[in-house]
Structures are given as structure tokens and as C-alpha cells.
């Protein structure tokens, strides 16, 4: 695994932040002046890749790819996979991404200003396409297997893991780099802010995101890169790789409903499908990493869906978005990484800023403060615009 988020630049830093319940949300004055109604964001430094990559490689990479590159570098190192291995074996990539707003806008501005398309430079096309992460990483890491971007709104990262799981399960691939990336800039999220769903209660920033709280005022955008190396059990054992966990269930569904308003049925079916595929009962789930973004309608529908699926089993539930904000296209992958860290180090990270539950969230076993607890099986929810839902179940390797 590898991670680059507002909670830290690597697994160790992120694990500490999760355990301490530390928020990565900051106020961005530039965003306010640009016209945002809510100027909060995950605070993330753009990585300096000058010493790691050539100019040719760097100029084709936008923000989201830079984040994904750093997290993938960490993941490959931890998986004991080097460039020589990648050149000799058929390793694939399935990565979630659903925008390249900054790259598109900056290049179009140049054309408007200079009246000459060539002056956008050679990297613009490769930074502007939605598949920018996979086209860049597959080139840099010399990948020779499946090469595919998953665009499924805020469930992109989760579906990438689910699809990778199926390709390996079917025997078509042995190793796939899965994950999600999300650009963090004022161009990327302006239209989302315009819907009026971002947190209106912005000060102090660390307390603005309150999933499942009665007094929540909206979500906070964020981003970064999160990578997981999926591998067949046989291949991992043969290589002597450290196996962190086993993907045992991938449930998906579409709401067949409104473009932005969620419902209860779609998410509930995704979770039930995941449980069915994993061939386990609801009582076997120790922890649910909720999608809950801190919007009233989204949290309410997910709370009802969880209660409908798990009834009196009462697994622990928390939304790490209370600390990270909504990492959108990356969230499905990053939240699996966060949950994997909890499983590896036997704790459950808190749903910070939760003071008062409402009628629906009161039915859940919400974790308000860090709990030291062994996790054997967890479920991670991710839902997106258009009603796309994904639920992944992962079991600890024993």
C-alpha cells in the first residue's frame, strides 16, 4: 500500500494522524477570493518530483498523477516490486480518476490568449485526458498488463479495487496496481461548491466536517493519491511478499434514481451483494468505514442502509472523512488504505466532530474516539453521483 493525503505523506504519518484523530482540513483564502462559498480544503503539498523523474515524464503529469505516483512508489516498495520485476512480468494498473480540471483549464487559457494550440506544449494532452494517471504510471513503471482508468465519480477508487479483484480472481492477471487519485485545486471543485453542499460552518477548519452529526453543514473537498497492490495468493506466496489482507467481497449497484440525491436502496444492495459474494454474515463485519461525507441527505441514507443491512449486529462505524474531507475520486481507495492501517495496527479511527447524533445515525455503533480493537474483517463503502455504489470487504491475512 501507499498513501499521499492531507493526513500525511506516507503510511506511517497517516497511521499516526488516524490514531490521533487529527484533521487535515485547512482554510484556503485564495479559494475564497476565487468565488467559493466554502473555502475549506484538505491541505496537501504538491510533491517535488524533479529528482525522481525526467522532464519528459514530469511534463505529462498533472496534480492527480503526481499524487498517484508518490503513493504508487511507496506501494511498490512495500510490496517488494522493483522496475526489473515490472519489466519481466505482466503487471497491470486499474486506477480511479474522474477529472483533470486544472490541466484542461490552463491549456485552454493559453490557446485563448495566444491563439495557437501548439503553445500549450506537448504535455497538455497527456495531462488533460481522464486516463492521465494510468497512461503516465503505466509508462513510468513499464507496465505490461491491464491498463485502465475507472471513472465512477466518488466511487472510482473503490471500483478500481473491485475490478482488480475480479480480474485476479478470474485468473486473467496476477498483479494489478489499484487505487484512486484526486486533484486538489480551486479549479477542480468550484462547480461542486456551487451546488451549496460544502460546509458553511467553516471555522475552525478542523471542526467543519461532521459526518453523522445532527449539526453538520456540508462536506469539505480534499484529495491526494492512494495505491493498493492486488496480487493472487499464489503469486504473493511465491514471491515471499507480505500479505496484508484478502479482498473477499465486492458489491456494486446503481441507484437508478436522481443524479445527485442518494437513496437507501442502492447502497444497501451494494453492501448485501458484497456480503453475499464474501459468503459471510453481517455479524462477521467488525468495522465499517462509511462513505458519509457530512451532507444531511447522504449521511441519513447511508445510516439507514447500514442499519437495514446490519440490523442488530452493530459493527463499529466511522467516517474518516471527518478528518480528511471528501477525497472524491480517490476516496474509495484511500479509505481502504486507512481501514487496512487500522486492521494492521488493531485500532479504529474516530469519527471526529461527532457530538450529537440524529434519529438515523443514533442507530449506528459510531466511534467517537479512537478504540484499540482487533479487526478481522472490514467493509468500506463508496458512493458517487449518478448513483454508483461500491462496497469492498477485506479480511485480515492469518
Amino acid at each position, binding site marked *: 500500500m501507499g498513501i499521499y493525503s492531507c493526513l500525511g505523506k506516507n503510511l506511517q504519518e497517516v497511521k499516526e494522524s488516524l490514531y490521533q484523530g487529527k484533521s487535515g482540513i485547512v482554510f484556503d483564502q485564495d479559494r475564497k477570493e476565487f468565488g467559493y462559498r466554502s473555502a475549506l480544503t484538505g491541505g496537501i503539498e504538491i510533491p517535488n518530483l524533479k529528482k525522481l523523474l525526467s522532464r*519528459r515524464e514530469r511534463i505529462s503529469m498533472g496534480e492527480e498523477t503526481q499524487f498517484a505516483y508518490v503513493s504508487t512508489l511507496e506501494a511498490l516498495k512495500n510490496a517488494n516490486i522493483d522496475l526489473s520485476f515490472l519489466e519481466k512480468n505482466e503487471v497491470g494498473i486499474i486506477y480511479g480518476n474522474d477529472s483533470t480540471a486544472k490541466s484542461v483549464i490552463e491549456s485552454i487559457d493559453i490557446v485563448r490568449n495566444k491563439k*495557437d494550440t501548439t*503553445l500549450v506544449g*506537448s504535455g497538455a494532452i497527456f495531462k488533460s485526458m481522464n486516463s492521465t494517471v494510468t497512461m503516465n504510471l503505466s509508462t513510468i513503471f513499464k507496465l505490461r498488463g491491464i491498463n485502465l482508468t475507472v471513472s465512477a465519480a466518488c466511487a472510482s477508487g473503490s471500483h478500481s479495487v473491485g475490478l482488480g479483484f475480479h480480474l485476479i480472481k478470474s485468473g486473467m492477471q496476477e498483479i494489478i496496481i489499484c487505487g484512486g487519485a484526486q486533484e486538489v485545486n480551486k479549479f477542480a471543485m468550484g462547480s461542486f461548491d456551487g451546488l451549496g453542499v460544502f460546509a458553511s460552518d467553516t471555522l475552525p477548519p478542523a471542526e467543519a466536517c461532521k459526518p453523522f452529526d445532527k449539526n453538520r453543514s456540508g462536506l469539505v473537498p480534499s484529495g491526494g493519491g492512494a495505491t493498493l497492490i492486488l496480487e493472487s495468493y499464489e503469486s504473493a506466496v511465491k514471491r515471499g511478499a507480505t500479505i496484508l489482507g484478502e479482498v473477499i467481497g465486492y458489491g456494486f449497484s446503481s441507484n437508478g434514481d436522481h443524479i445527485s440525491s442518494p437513496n437507501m436502496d442502492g447502497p444497501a444492495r451494494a453492501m448485501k451483494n458484497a456480503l453475499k459474494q464474501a459468503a459471510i454474515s453481517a455479524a462477521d463485519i467488525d468495522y465499517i468505514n462509511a462513505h458519509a461525507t457530512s451532507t444531511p441527505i447522504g449521511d441519513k441514507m447511508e445510516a439507514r442502509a447500514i442499519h437495514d443491512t446490519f440490523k442488530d449486529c452493530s459493527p463499529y462505524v466511522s467516517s474518516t472523512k471527518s478528518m480528511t474531507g471528501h477525497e472524491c475520486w480517490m476516496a474509495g481507495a484511500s479509505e481502504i488504505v486507512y481501514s487496512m492501517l487500522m486492521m494492521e495496527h488493531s485500532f479504529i479511527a474516530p469519527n471526529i466532530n461527532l457530538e450529537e447524533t440524529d434519529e438515523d445515525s443514533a442507530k449506528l455503533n459510531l466511534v467517537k474516539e479512537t478504540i484499540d480493537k482487533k479487526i478481522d474483517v472490514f467493509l468500506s463503502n463508496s458512493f458517487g453521483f449518478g448513483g454508483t455504489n461500491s462496497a469492498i470487504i477485506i479480511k485480515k491475512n492469518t
Partner: protein
Amino acid sequence: MDKETIIVKINDFLVDEFEAEMDDLVPDANLKETLELDSLDFVDLVVAVESEFGVKLVAEDFVGVETLDNFYHLIDVKLN
């Protein structure tokens, strides 16, 4: 702009933006073989020249331009 200034400016952006080694920037250096510029890099040369000299090059301008000296000469002709 005199040719010496043109050469200095071109060498500067080749080092700063294209990560060329100063030692390789000799007049008979082949752009493709010595400086390892590929077809995409030539697009970025057009961008750098427009930014540095205010001159817009097109593909036809590069016909016959093989060495760094040819490139210096091209810009000299365009400017003067």
C-alpha cells in the same frame, strides 16, 4: 538581437527547461542524437522560442535543422 545573445538565451532554456547538459551544447551537437530531443520535445521548443523571443515557429521551419548551430541560425534569421 545579436547572435551571441540568441545563443546564450537558447542554451539557458535548454539547460533550465530541457535539462540538457551545458557540456553537450556545442554548435555541431545533433538535436535528436546528442541532445536526445524527440518529436514531442520539438513542440516544447516551439513553446520556449515563443516565450523567449516572441517568434512562432511551425513544423516547416525545422526542415534542415539538425544541429544546434542550425537552430541558432533559424532563430537569428527569424529575428533579424
